[in-house]
C-alpha cells in the first residue's frame, strides 16, 4: 500500500506503508543510531514524534521480548528507507511490521530518508504526517498545519504512570543477578521514564518507587526516600510547571539526579532557561566531555530542547558536561546542594555504555547526603 509523509512546509515524500495503515501526526525527527529501533520506538520521550531512522536497513533483527523501554510504542510513527524482508535473530519473536501493526502505529518505508534528514537539518524539525489516505495534499496539509505542535504543550501527563508502582516489576523485569543488598530507596518522578534507567538504578543498588509526574513533593517527602530521580520524558519542559515547582521544593532536602527532561526541569527550577534546538540531538554517537576530568563519553541522545548554557546562575551551578559537536550544555551540578543532571542518556539503550558512572555518582551523592 502506498503511503505519504507530508511535512508542514509542504514537502511530500511518497513511499510504502507498513505497520498500521492510517494516519499519524507528530514532530518529525531523525535518529542516527545504526540499530536499536526497538528501544527507540518504546521510549516514551518519542511520544508525539514521527521518528525517521537515518540508517537505511531497519527491522533486520525483528523485535524481541527483552529490549523494551516501556510497555508500548510511544513514537507516533516510524519512517525508514528499507524494511527488512526477514527477521534474523535468535531472540526475535516477531517482525517490526507486525509489532507496529499490533500497536496501531503507522510506518512508511521506501522513501529517501537522507533527503528528509537534510531537509530537517537545514529547515529545522517540523510537524509531519504519515498517511495512507488518498486525500489531496492541500487538504492534508491544511489539517496538519491547523494541528497542535510540541512547543508550549505539556505532554508529560499523557505518558506518565497513572499510579505509583515499585521496581523491579516482577519476574520478567528482575535482573539476572540483583545486587546482594539494595542500599538506597529512590523515588522516581516518571515524566516518561525508560525501563533502562530503572534497570541502571536498580543495578547500582537502588530500590525504586515510581510516581506520577504530578505527585506533590510533600507526598514524596512523606515517603522519606534516600534520593529523588527526575526522569526523561517527551516534549517541551516549560509547560510542565508543576514539576518545576515540585523540584524547587525538593532541592536541598533530598539528593536529586535528573536525566533529559528531568535535567531540563532541574535547570528551570534553578532559574535557567530552556529553548528548542533546530533539529535536536537524536543518536548514539554524540561526544560529550566530562569537564572535571576532560574524559570523553560517546553518548546516547534524544532531546529537542536544551537548557541554555549561560542561563544558569554561575554562583550556584557548575557546568560538568559539554557537547563537543555544538558546545551545548550536557550536564551540571549544584555547587552546594545535592543535585545534578545530564541532558543525555547515561542508561544508553540504544547506544554506548560509556556513562554508567553517573548512576554510581548518584549513589555517592546519597551516601554523602546521609552521612
Amino acid at each position, binding site marked *: 500500500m502506498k503511503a505519504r509523509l507530508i511535512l508542514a512546509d509542504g514537502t511530500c515524500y511518497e513511499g510504502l506503508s507498513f505497520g498500521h495503515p492510517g494516519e499519524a501526526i507528530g514532530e518529525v525527527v531523525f535518529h542516527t543510531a545504526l540499530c536499536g529501533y526497538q528501544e527507540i520506538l518504546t521510549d516514551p520521550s518519542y511520544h508525539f514524534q514521527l521518528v525517521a531512522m537515518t540508517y537505511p536497513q531497519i527491522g533486520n533483527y525483528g523485535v524481541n521480548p527483552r529490549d523494551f523501554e516501556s510497555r508500548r510504542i510511544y513514537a507516533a510513527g516510524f519512517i525508514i528507507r528499507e524494511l527488512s524482508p526477514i527477521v534474523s535473530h535468535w531472540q526475535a519473536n516477531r517482525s517490526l511490521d507486525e509489532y507496529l501493526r499490533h500497536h496501531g502505529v503507522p510506518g512508511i518505508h521506501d522513501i529517501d530518508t537522507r533527503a528528509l534528514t537534510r531537509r530537517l*537539518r537545514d529547515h529545522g524539525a517540523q510537524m509531519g504526517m504519515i498517511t495512507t489516505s488518498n486525500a489531496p495534499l492541500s487538504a492534508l496539509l491544511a489539517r496538519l498545519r491547523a494541528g497542535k505542535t510540541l512547543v508550549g504543550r505539556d505532554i508529560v501527563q499523557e505518558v506518565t504512570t497513572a499510579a505509583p508502582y515499585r521496581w523491579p516489576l516482577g519476574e520478567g523485569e528482575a535482573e539476572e543477578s540483583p545486587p546482594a543488598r539494595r542500599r538506597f530507596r529512590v523515588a522516581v518522578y516518571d515524566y516518561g521514564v525508560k525501563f533502562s534507567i530503572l534497570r541502571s538504578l536498580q543495578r547500582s543498588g537502588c530500590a525504586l518507587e515510581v510516581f506520577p509526574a504530578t505527585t506533590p513533593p510533600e507526598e514524596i517527602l512523606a515517603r522519606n526516600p534516600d534520593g529523588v530521580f527526575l526522569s526523561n520524558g517527551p516534549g517541551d519542559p516549560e509547560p510542565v510547571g508543576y514539576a518545576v515547582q515540585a523540584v524547587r521544593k525538593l532541592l536541598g532536602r533530598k539528593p536529586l539526579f535528573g536525566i533529559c527532561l528531568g535535567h531540563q526541569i532541574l535547570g528551570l527550577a534553578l532559574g535557567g532557561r530552556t529553548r528548542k534546538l533546530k533539529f535536536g540531538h537524536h543518536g548514539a554517537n554524540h561526544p560529550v566531555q566530562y569537564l572535571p576530568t576532560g574524559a570523553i563519553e*560517546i553518548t546516547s541522545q534524544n532531546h529537542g530542547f536544551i537548557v541554555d548554557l549561560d542561563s544558569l546562575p554561575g554562583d550556584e551551578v557548575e557546568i560538568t558536561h559539554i557537547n563537543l559537536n555544538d558546545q551545548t550544555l550536557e550536564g551540571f551540578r549544584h555547587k552546594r546542594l545535592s543535585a545534578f543532571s545530564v541532558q543525555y542518556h547515561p542508561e544508553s539503550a540504544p547506544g554506548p555504555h560509556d556513562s554508567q558512572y553517573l548512576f554510581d555518582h548518584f549513589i555517592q551523592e546519597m551516601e554523602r547526603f546521609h552521612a
Partner: protein
Amino acid sequence: MPKRKDIKRILVIGSGPIVIGQACEFDYSGTQACRALKQEGFRVILVNSNPATIMTDPEFSDRTYIEPLHAEAIARIIEQERPDALLPTLGGQTSLNLAVELAEQGVLEEYGVELIGARLETIRLAEDRERFRNAMLEIGLQVPAGEVVRSLEQALAAAERIGFPLIIRPSFTLGGIGGSVVYNREEFPAAARWGLSASPVGEVLIEQSVLGWKEYELEVMRDQADNFVIVCSIENFDPMGIHTGDSITVAPAQTLTDVELQNMRDAAKQIIRRVGVETGGANIQFALNRDTGRMVVIEMNPRVSRSSALASKATGFPIAKIAAKLAVGYRLDEIPNDITRKTPASFEPAIDYVVVKIPRWDFEKFPGNDRRLTSQMKSVGEAMAIGRTFKEALNKALRSLENGWSGFHAREEASITRLSRTALLDDLRSGTPDRILKLWQALTLGIPPQELCRLTGIDVWFLENLRQLVEFEGAITREYAERSTLRAATLRRAKRMGFSDRHLGLLLGKRETEIRAMRKAAGVLPAYKIVDTCAAEFESFTPYYYSTYDEENESHPSARRKVIILGGGPNRIGQGIEFDYCCVHGTFALKELGFEAIMVNCNPETVSTDYDVADKLYFEPLTYEDVLNVIELEKPEGVILQFGGQTPLKLAVALEKAGVPIWGTSPDSTDLAEDRDRFGALLDELDIAHPQYATAVSVEEAVAAAQHIGFPLMVRPSYVLGGRAMEIVYDPTALETYMQQAVRASEEHPVLLDRFLEDAYEFDVDALSDGEDTAIVGLMQHIEEAGVHSGDSMAVLPPYLLSREQREDILEATRAIAARLKVKGLLNIQFAILYDTLYVLEVNPRASRTVPFVSKATGIPVAKYAVRLMAGERLAAMNLRVPAEPPYVAVKESVFPFDRFERADIFLRPEMRSTGEVMGIAETFGNAVMKAFEATGIRIATGGRVFLSVNDNDKARIVPIAENLHKLGYALVATHGTAETLASRGIPVQPVLKVSEGRPNVVDDIKNGAIQLIINTPLGHRARQDEYAIGWAAIKYRVPFITTLSAAEAIVRGLRAKGKHPIEYRCLQEFHRLL
C-alpha cells in the same frame, strides 16, 4: 594534551612489497601517516622497500629509504638518522614484527628511539596467542577453547583434547599464512607442521573450531587519555572458518541488536585497555553463535589493518591519519573531523548506507590448487561498493570485481548453471571464489534460504535479500513478457536494488546501451549521495560520493574546468598498486594545472580513494554504465584512461562512441597497438623488426600458422593483462593441447601466436610523448631472458648490457612508434635484442607497471608529466631533463605468492604471477641486486651449502657460477649430471640424490636445514615432479630458490660485491641529488 614537543624525528616503517595478506592498504595508511606527521612539522624518515607506493615518493617524507625491510638495514638507518621515535603501527605485520625485533636486539634502546603508537609489551601481548587468550579470560571475556603449542607432539596432544574440527593459527604471521581448518586426525600432522614452520617463532594455537559462527570485526581507536571510539562495525557475510580477507564483508553490522553491539563494544574497550593500545587504532574480531548469542573473542591487531582501510573508506573516518596524530600526543577531541570541520574526531561515525566488500582471487594463475577458502587468505584484491541497501551495494560490488560479472546472477557462467543440484549443494558447503553466484543458482532452483543457511553458515538475513533479488528477476521478465516493455516504476525498482543495465539487458534480451536509452527515457537516473561520517546530521565539506537510485542528488558539478581520472579497480596479479600510483600522480598534476580533478574508483585499499586526494571522489564500479553516469553528470573537459591499467582502457572505445572526450592517446591508437595485424603492418611500415606472428581461432589455424612461423612459439589469448594463460610451446602437440585446453579460442577471442625469441635480452622502455616529440624516461634491462613475463622478471636501470648503437636503435624505434601512434602521455614498449637485431615485442600506449619504479629511480615524476602532455603542453616546453646515465643502479625484483598455494609452479613463465615488487638501489649492480633480493625476504647465508641442478643447455653457464660460489666459501652439492659437469672442471662438489633416486635425497637435506641456497633451472616435463618437490620444500623451509641462471649470476655478483663493498643505506633524496 597537544602535540608532543620532545620528539622531532620520526621513523616510519612501511609494509614492503605487495603480498597476499598485505597489500596496498598499507600504502594508504603509510601515506596518510607521513602526510599527517609532516603537516605537524615532524621530520619523517621512511623505510619501505616497495617503489610502487605513493608513500615512497620523496615529497611525502624528509628522508625516504627504499631499502630492504630487515632489522640489520633498519638498525643502520637508525644509526644514521637518529630518530627520536619509531611508529610501527601503520606498516602492517611487517613493521610491527620489525619493531619487536629491533627492540629485542637493543637497537632502540641503544639509540634512544621511543616506540610510539604501540608499546613493545602491547605488541607482544596482542601477538602472542597464549598470553592474549589468558588476558581475555582474565578480563572475563570468552575465547574458543585452545592451546598454544611449540612442537608437533604438543600439537597432537592438544588436538586430541580439543577435538575436530579445529583451527590452526600460527603466531606472528600475516594474512593467516600457515593457518588451516583441520577436519580429521589424518590431515592434522601435515597441517600442524605447516603452521609451526610458517610462524617465525615456531608457535601455533590449536583452537576449538567455531566454524559457521557469525563473524564480526570492530575497528576501534583509543587515545592516551583513554578516550575510545568505534569507527565501524563489520559483519562478515561468510561465517567463521573463512579468513576475513577472503570473506565478503558488510558494514555496518546488519544482524546485531543494540544490546549485542554494545556488549561487543564494551568487550572491545576492555580488550584495548588490557592489551594497552594507548594511541592509535586496533581491530578486534569476534565470533557469535547464531542460536545462542554466545560471543567469543578471536583476535586483535594492535595496528592499522586491511579492515581499517575498509572502515576508513566505508565511513570517511581517516583512521591512519588520526592514528598518526594520536601517536604524537594528540587526543581524539583535539583532532577536527575534516568532513564536518566543526565536530571533533572523538565520535563514532553514523553511516546511512550499506557497504559491501568482495575479495578477488587469481586462482586461475595457480592451476591444480584447491579453490576452497580457508583460514589462510588467498585473495589478491578487493572491490568495495556503497549503496543505500545491501542489495544495491552487493550488486554494485559484484560488477566492480571485473570478473565479467554484471551483478547477482550466474546467467553467463555456464560452469555454475550446468551444475547438478547435488553437486551444487555439495559445492556450497565450502567457500569458493564463486560461491556467491552458486547461491544464485541454488535460489533459482528454489532452495530456501533456511536450508542454504544450514549448508553455508551464511546468515539467513543475507540469503533472504539474495532470494528477493532472484524473485525480482522473475518479476522483470514476466512484466516484459506481458507488456513488451518495462514500466518506469519497475525499472526504477530494479535500479534501486542495484540491477545493472547489462544485467537487465540479459533479462530482456537487449543490449546494455538499449537499456540505458530506455532508462534515461523513463527518467530513471542515479542520484549521488555524500559519505559524510554523520548521516547528514551536519553539513559536510568532503566531496566523497556514491551513486544510488534515491531522489535527492547531492553532487552539483562546479563551473570549474574539470578532468576525470578512471582508476584501476580491484587489485589482481598484473594490475595493482603501480596503477594507483599513476592515478594519484595524475590527480596531483591536474590540481597543479588548476583543473578540478575527479577520481572514479572502487578499490578501498588505495590512496586514490582517500577523500582528500582528488577534488571529487566517486566511489563507483568502473563499468561503462557507472562511469558514463558520472561523466554525464560532471561533463568534464577530458577523461583520462591511461593510468588505471587495462580497466579503463577496456571502456575506451565504448566511451568514445558515447561522445566522451578522451584525453591522451586516442582509443584508436590503443586498438592499433593491441591489434596484431594492424600493429604488424605499422611496424613493417616503420621498418622495425618484430617476431613473426599470427592469430588463430581454431586448432587447425594455429597448427598451420605454426608451420609458417616456426617453433618455439609464445601463445596467448588476445586482450589480456599480466600474460594470462600465456605459454611457450615447443612443438605442434603442445600447441594443440594449449588450443584445446588452456584457452577456448573463438572468433571474438582469437589466440595470438608469436615466434618466441629464445635467449634474447629484453628491455622495457617508458616514454613520454606529445605526439611529435618523445622522451625516454626509463630504459630498463630484464635480468631474466625472454620468456619470463616482464612483470615477474628482475629489471635493472640503467641497462648493463647495451651498446651505444643498440641504445640509439631503441630510442629511434620508440620515437618512431610514438609519433606514428600519436601518443599523448605515456608509452611503454618492450624490446628484445637477439643476435644484434632489435625486435619490438609489445607496445602499450598507457602507463605501465614500471612507471613508479622509473620515477623512484630517476626522480622524474613521470605520471605528472604525462598529464601535462595530455593537457596540451609540448614536451619541448616542459624543461624535462632525463639523466643519461644515473651514477647508481636500481634493480626491481618481484615477489610471488607461492607460499600460499599447496602446488604452485615455482618456475617463472610468460604468465605473470608476482603480486608485488621491491627495489634495490646502490652504487654498484652487485649491491643493488643483493638489496633487491634481501628486500624480497631472501637472506642468503654467508656460508653453507648450495644445491645446484641445471638442464643441459645451462651446463656450460653454471660453471662460472659454481666456481664463484666455491671461491666465496660455499660448499656445493649437485644432482648427478650437474655434479659431473662441475667435477670435470675441477670444482669440488658433492653429489646428492634426486627425489626419484632414493633417500636420503635433496628434499631430505632441505628439510634438515643442510642447504642454504638452491639454484635449479627447469629440466623439462620429465623432471617436473622432482623439481616441484624441491621447490615446495624450499618454500616451506624458507630456503632461497633461484630458477634462472641469469638470476643466479646476479646473485653471485651480489655476493661478491657484498664481500668487497659493505652495503650502504642511502635515502632517495640523496640518490636524486647525484643526478
